[in-house]
C-alpha cells in the first residue's frame, strides 16, 4: 500500500509495518511549522549519537539570562563522511541556527540551517556552496 507522509514532498511507497521514512521520523510529527526559530549561541555540548546528533546551544538573552536549546542534526555516520566531525564542530563555538521548535513547546528544534561563526553552513549540501564534504 502507499501512504503519503504528511507535509513531506517526497512520497515514499511503504509497507504497513516497516516504512523507509525519511530518516527516522517525520519532522511534521516532532516539530511545529508554526514555530520557526532563529537563535545564536554557544555550543555547550554535542551528542554524536545515532539515529541523530544533538547539538546543545546556550543562548544569551538580552537580559543576560542563558536559555538552553537542543538542536537535532544529522546521523553522525553520515556527518563524519561529509567532514562534519568533532574537529570541525566543537564545544565553545558560536553558531546560528534556523529551525522549528518542538510541538510540545520545549526548547528543542530541528537544525534547518546551522551556520558557523566563519560563515560556513553545516546544513547546506547543494553543489557549489563550499559546504563541508564539497572540498
Amino acid at each position, binding site marked *: 500500500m502507499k501512504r503519503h507522509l504528511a*507535509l513531506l514532498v517526497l512520497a515514499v511507497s*511503504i509497507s504497513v509495518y516497516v516504512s523507509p521514512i525519511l530518516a527516522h*521520523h517525520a519532522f511534521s510529527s516532532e516539530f511545529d511549522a508554526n514555530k520557526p526559530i532563529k537563535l545564536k549561541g554557544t555550543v555547550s555540548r554535542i551528542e554524536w549519537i545515532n539515529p541523530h546528533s544533538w547539538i546543545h546551544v546556550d543562548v544569551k538573552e538580552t537580559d543576560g539570562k542563558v536559555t538552553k536549546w537542543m538542536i537535532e542534526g544529522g546521523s553522525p555516520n*553520515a556527518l563524519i563522511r561529509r567532514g562534519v566531525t568533532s574537529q570541525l564542530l566543537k564545544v565553545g563555538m558560536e553558531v546560528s541556527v534556523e529551525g522549528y521548535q518542538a510541538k510540545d513547546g520545549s526548547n528543542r528544534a530541528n537544525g534547518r540551517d546551522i551556520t558557523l561563526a566563519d560563515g560556513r553552513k553545516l546544513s547546506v549540501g547543494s553543489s557549489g556552496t563550499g559546504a563541508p564534504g564539497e572540498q
Partner: protein
Amino acid sequence: MRHFSTIGVLALLSFLPFVGLAQAPARTATATKAWTPPKTPDGQPDLQGYWTNITITPLERPANLANKEFFTRAEAEAYEKQVVDRNNADRRDGTPAQDVSRAYNDFWWDRGTKVVKTLRTSLIVDPPDGRVPAMVAGATQRLAAQARTRVGRATDGPEFRPLAERCLLWATAGPPMMPSFYNNNYQIVQNAGYVMILVEMIHDVRIIPIDNRPHLPGEVRQWLGNAVGHWDGNTLVVETTNFTDKTSFRSTSKDMKLTERFTRTDADTLMYEFTVDDPLTYVRPWTAQIPMSKTEGPIWEYACHEGNYAMTNVLSGARAEEKAAAEAAAKGSRK
C-alpha cells in the same frame, strides 16, 4: 571516473553477443583482457570489503522513460542534474509547511548524485517495463485489513510507530538490500562456511551459511527471514524464506521467497541482483539489479537506541496537540 571504464567494458560486453563469428579475433582479444575475480585463500570467490549501493536510480522506471531501458551518458547526466536540483532542500521559497518538510536538507542526507553505472533507468530489470508487477486480488485485501488496524492510532504509543523509528529494523536494510537516504554502506566478511554482511542501517548483521542446508521448518519465522547460501560459479546465491508478517518489502507477504545473487564483475563492482517471488502478492516474480561499488571503511557503529530522543518528541508532540485541542474544545463549549 572509474565509471567510464566500467561502462565502456559493459557496453562492449553487451555488444559482443551480436558479433558474428567473423569477429572472433576481436572477441578473443577482449577475453584475454577479461578481469579475473579474486579468490579467498581457500579458493572461494572473494566478495570481502566495504561496498555501497548509493544511487539515485529509482526502483521503478519513471513513466516518462517508458520503453527506455538505458540512458546514454549525456541523458544520464541530464537526469542526475534534474534529480539533484529537485532534491535541493536548501531553497527557502516555499510555504512554512514546505519549509519544515525541507528541513531534512543535505545536513541529513547522503543519497547520492549519480545513476547506476550500468546506466539503467530503473533498478528493476524484469519485467522488462522496469515496473513492479500487478498485485493479486488477495494481496490488496490483506493490506487493507492490516491498514485498518492502525487507522487513527499512529501516535497512540511506540508500538504504533514504524519499526525504523523504533530503531528495530530499517526498511531498506533488507533482505533485499536497497539504497536509502543515507548510510548506504555494507561490509562483507567471509570464512569457509559463512558469509557475513554488516548492514550499516540500522545495525543488522546477516550471517549466511553457504552449505546449501535446508531452510528452517515453516513454522519458524524470523524478521530477516532464514537465509541459506551457495556458490554458483563465481556468484553467491542466497535464498531467504520464513519471513514474518511484521516486516514486508514492497507489500510482500511472509511467504515471499527472496533470491539474491552477488557477483564480482570488475575490481570496483559487486553486482547485486534480487528476485522477489511472492505469489500471495504479485502476479509474477520480479528482479532488480543494483551495482554496488567499492567504498572505504570503517563503518561506524549505528547504535540507534542510544540517541532516539525523537520517539519521545513525536509522542510528547502528539500529547501536546491533543491537550491543545481538548482545551480549545472546552473553551468553545463554555461560550
